[in-house]
């Protein structure tokens, strides 16, 4: 057995569990282990900002694909339809910002698709701004800082791949009374955001953010699969340590 086979087994097992649990589809709240104060805080802050007529920003990262964190760009896009719902889209105060051209193009497609699905096939010009403040990591950071200075943002939600520069944006928003939620992926960004973001999601929970924001039966399949995989991983690690101790490995 080599690592390719192990990889296939892990992927195959995960796919199988996702399919089986999706077919079983238990009733909502039968597996409600996940409740997040942070996610609830974001939803409340979004609503408050809408009521006050304040602009809101969803930042989806500066890379669509990175070698260290390959799933983060995709994850930011999967969370986008939940945050860019009909209530959020219509007032024209929502902006989606990314630091990678491809990420921004896909985000614009998602927002437009959401708008068409929510309203009418005839309407295809949502007032949501999808912006690319800069095409590289640092130019994105500078561009976003500038954007944040132009308006008083009510809330900002960080998803996707960032470096430590994310703390500059949170500082810019919080200093003007805005709310910050972060499910930013890289370990460095998680460490620095711990300092000044109260509603912060870290580790594997980052990938569950979409499910935390709106819990439904599809997300329960993910949680069950992830939990089983986690237990299997822990058992595997313990078995590996024991085998190493007794000299088998």
């Amino acid at each position: 057995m080599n690592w390719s086979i192990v990889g296939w087994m892990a992927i195959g097992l995960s796919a199988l569990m996702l399919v089986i649990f999706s077919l079983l589809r238990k009733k909502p709240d039968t597996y409600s282990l996940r409740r997040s104060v942070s996610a609830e805080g974001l939803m409340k802050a979004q609503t408050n900002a809408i009521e006050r007529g304040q602009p809101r920003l969803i930042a989806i990262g500066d890379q669509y694909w990175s070698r260290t964190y390959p799933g983060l760009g995709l994850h930011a896009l999967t969370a986008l339809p939940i945050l860019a719902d009909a209530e959020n889209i219509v007032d024209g105060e929502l902006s989606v910002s990314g630091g990678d051209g491809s990420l921004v193009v896909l985000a614009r497609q998602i927002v437009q698709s959401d708008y068409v699905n929510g309203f009418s096939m005839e309407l295809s010009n949502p007032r949501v701004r999808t912006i690319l403040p800069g095409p590289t990591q640092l130019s994105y950071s500078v561009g976003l800082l500038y954007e944040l200075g132009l308006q008083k943002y009510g809330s900002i939600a960080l998803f996707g791949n960032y470096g430590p520069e994310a703390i500059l944006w949170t500082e810019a928003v919080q200093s003007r009374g805005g709310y910050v939620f972060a499910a930013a992926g890289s370990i460095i960004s998680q460490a620095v955001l711990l300092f000044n973001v109260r509603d912060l999601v870290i580790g594997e929970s980052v990938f569950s953010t979409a499910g935390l924001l709106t819990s439904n039966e599809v997300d329960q399949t993910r949680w069950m699969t992830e939990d089983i995989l986690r237990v299997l991983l822990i058992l595997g690690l313990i078995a590996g340590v024991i085998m190493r101790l007794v000299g088998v490995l």
Partner: protein
Amino acid sequence: MKKILPGIIALISGILILAGYFFQDRSGGLLVLLINWGILLISVAGLVGIGYLLQMHIHRLFQHKKGRFFSIILLVSFLITLILGFLFSLESAFFRELILNIQIPVETSLLALLAVILFSSSTRLIKTRGWTPLSIGFLCSAMVFLFLDLGFLQTGTGTLAAELIVLIRRLPLAGARGILLGMALGGLIVGLRVLLLLDRPFGEGK
């Protein structure tokens, strides 16, 4: 059909790339071909994204919106870089020197600003999070590793204390690996959900 087709294409492409990745010797160049297609599409999307950037600043300029002065700077800089990029190639020492001598000082100043903000934010950890086990643990571990990295603590080689220090110094690495393992699991599930059409961010996938 319009809603199912993108999902089917994603499913087939994903499975082909996975198969090509695991059986590289038997894929017969299929993996390289698909990845090259992907890179091409992503590059085109990247160009469209840069088009959005220019569109936003041109719009801001002509609508006389706040911050149009900086939009002018951006557009002029972009045009100069573009023209020089066409005139000289990326291998040109003059072009690289010109760009890097502007870019590096600007980026360095941003990093300097970041260092100051990081320092000021670190002093507010307790104010942000309160006296929780997480914040206390974070502060204590930061102090311990700062102290260890200063090098004041010297021990003889091969002693129990030296072994202990090596063990403690490896703890952050173990923690980081734990987080990365968790994130790898999360990433795997996100990818599979998109491939199995359980998540469809491109439409009706909420």
